[in-house]
């Protein structure tokens, strides 16, 4: 294993409370030392470390995305674990948690292990999120204990909400026993049949059936009620891709009542509104849908006041021929790994003055701790050598055609981004380097 000295950078590591100039020595895939500038030079020389000059750049723990779709096994034409994690590395992510809606559904120890194999050629660490029910059919629970032992970090039927109260109750209880959270895609599908965007005036004008806010908030409220019934069992509910102010209010209230509820928000839900659908742009179609401006603002407030735990991209690649269809027929989802940092820095840091430390907390520290990913989201000595180095002032234009993902279904093609990733290091290995 190579040894790396990252010198002259500004270290932002919220887990250690560091927000200052520090040098970083990486050895054998771990953080060997963090010291004030210059103090590691001698040690680095001894081990003939490769030196990375990070002057003017931010050095932070590699970003952690707890919600991605890597499409393998089964849909390699959209994405593979290799291409998806290459996109992750380009976006500064060193850890991604892969949802189980693969073909076949990841509801087994075998697939969970297969996804983590080095044979997949990953550029970032992949943690599977296993299906909460067999085949994600919502009927019978999978084996949470053995899935966790095989490496699964949570259970979810993402894309298919668990509607049955009895099953959700069982899932929360079983996951609590296994010590992992249940991640719910909160959508009451009884209210969203045939719907392809947010309900409201725009959906009415476009002649599209709309998903009401209540379809999300109603299910979040139901799940919180089930969680309250399990009080004492230490159950943990994590709400995936929150998109409405009403659902966020329910989460806030539950937390005030001492329940273990966490939530994530995707960049597109605090950057875009339903107006992006425009003239039936299928790259603005996802589930949950882009919402009204009031909901977008609610997501921003949730990020600013701390009631939203983390940012997760819901990276959902689809082939061009799938998105080049009638709006109602086109599949839900957009790619997000390469645009997340640039959008977040631009909107949260530049426009809303959120500190870099807080931003890294949302993109790395908290998502890692939320799923108990030990040694991730931190650059403390002994942590994994997962590092992102970025220029926080660089402005650049995101080009979908240059993506490392196999798919280019993004609404952010041609958008101005702030903060360019210079280098991404995964467990001591350089997995991305910006073109000179």
């Amino acid at each position: 294993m190579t040894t790396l000295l990252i010198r002259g950078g500004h270290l932002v590591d919220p887990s250690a409370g560091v927000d200052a100039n520090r040098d970083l020595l990486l050895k054998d895939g771990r953080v060997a030392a963090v010291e004030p500038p210059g103090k590691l030079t001698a040690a680095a020389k001894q081990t003939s470390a490769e030196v990375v000059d990070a002057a003017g750049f931010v050095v932070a723990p590699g970003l952690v995305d707890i919600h991605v779709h890597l499409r393998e096994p089964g849909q390699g034409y959209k994405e593979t674990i290799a291409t998806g994690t290459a996109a992750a590395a380009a976006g500064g992510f060193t850890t991604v948690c892969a949802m189980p809606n693969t073909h076949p559904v990841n509801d087994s120890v075998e697939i969970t292990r297969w996804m983590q194999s080095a044979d997949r050629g990953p550029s970032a660490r992949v943690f599977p999120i296993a299906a909460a029910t067999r085949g994600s059919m919502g009927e019978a629970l999978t084996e949470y204990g053995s899935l966790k032992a095989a490496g699964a970090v949570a259970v979810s039927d993402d894309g298919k909400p668990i509607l049955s109260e009895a099953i959700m109750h069982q899932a929360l209880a079983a996951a609590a026993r296994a010590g992992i959270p249940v991640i719910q895609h909160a959508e009451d599908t009884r209210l969203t049949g045939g719907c392809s965007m947010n309900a409201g005036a725009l959906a009415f004008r476009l002649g599209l059936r709309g998903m009401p806010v209540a379809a999300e908030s109603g299910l979040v409220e139901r799940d919180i009620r089930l969680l309250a019934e399990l009080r004492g069992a230490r159950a943990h509910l994590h709400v995936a891709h929150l998109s409405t102010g009403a659902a966020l209010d329910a989460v806030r209230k539950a937390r005030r009542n001492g329940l273990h509820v966490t939530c994530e928000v995707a960049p597109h839900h605090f950057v875009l509104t339903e107006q992006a659908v425009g003239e039936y742009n299928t790259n603005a179609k996802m589930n949950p849908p882009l919402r009204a401006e009031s909901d977008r603002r609610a997501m921003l407030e949730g990020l600013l006041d701390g009631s939203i735990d983390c940012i997760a991209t819901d990276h959902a690649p689809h082939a061009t021929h799938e998105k080049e269809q009638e709006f109602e027929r086109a599949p839900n989802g957009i790619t997000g790994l390469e645009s997340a940092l640039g959008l977040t820095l631009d909107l949260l840091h530049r426009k809303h003055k959120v500190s870099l430390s807080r931003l890294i907390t949302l993109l790395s520290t908290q998502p890692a701790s939320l799923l108990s990913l030990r040694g991730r989201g931190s650059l403390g000595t002994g942590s994994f050598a997962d590092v992102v180095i970025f220029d926080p002032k660089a402005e650049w234009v995101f080009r979908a055609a240059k993506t490392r993902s196999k798919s280019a279904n993004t609404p952010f093609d041609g958008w101005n981004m702030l903060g360019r990733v210079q280098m991404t290091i995964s467990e001591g290995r350089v997995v991305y380097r910006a073109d000179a």
Partner: protein
Amino acid sequence: MKPAKPNPEPARIPLLSEIPVASSNQLCPGCLLSVTSLSVDDVSSILRLATELESEQPELRARRLAHRRIALLFYESSTRTRTSFELAAKGLGADTALISSQSSSIEKGESLKDTGITLRALGAECIILRHLSSGAPYLLAKVTGLPVLNAGDGMHEHPSQALLDVRTMIQALARPEDVPGGNLLSGVKVVITGDILHSRVARSNALLLPKLGARVILCGPPALLPEVAEELGPGITIERDFDRALGQAEIVMMLRIQRERLAGLHIDLDEYMARYQLNQGRLRSYGPKAIVMHPGPMIRGLEISSEVADGPQSVIALQVRNGVAIRMALIYRALECRRVQPAHKETTKPRFAAKRKRGRA
């Protein structure tokens, strides 16, 4: 496609290299996908063109688009719209080909994109599209670069219907077709009653009529007329009481309940008819002078009684007739727009240069 008849000019089969490649998001200016893209001047010029073409000698008219190729692509059944578009195209001398989803490769799973590209390769210069899915014409226009005329897409819009309705209103109210400033329907109150939620005709009319100075009053039960309909645009209000709405109206437009789009919604038809059917008694009491319209297809005895549909206040047949004139104007505009202001300059210019001489009469 019909083989081109012997003609003084060579058959107009474009070389593959001449077929424009769909690359930009720019839509061809001859498209009509939504009434929202029409300015007041556009509406006036379409109405003038419709009148001009309608009054022209059929032999002269048939030379205007002689043997130009127009595809009618219908994913949904249609009587009025399809026939009038076809008659309009043929009236201008164009060759038409009808492709319907039941008897084409669409049944085998061919995508809308590939169907469009195939029609373009066969020489179609304009595609008239009826589709079950809202917004489908935008996709077709984008991937083909051709002028696309929206002949009804899902619950979204039916722009040619709104234009023929405007023409019918002007005629029925004996108003001038040409008004400075374009206030063709200033002060006119139009009640649209029925299944607004699922109606593309309602959307196109509600978006277009206020632009021309009219006031639109939407009427129906909440299940078929959500409050959010008022936010479609300015000049639109909701009145749940049909009698009260009828009392204010110069024009009343009735809509069918679209059973095929109800998606599990249950409507008590007896109650619906009691409150919203336009029958003789209601018309006599509340709208003795109102002009009665219906875009069709009608379900007699449900939203409208036979006496009213066939009665002296009804202009339903006039609407159908106006469909041909309006659609001639739209087809002509689609092909001429393409000629004058091609979307893909370098490829389209040589194709139409030879035709320019006998374009305008």
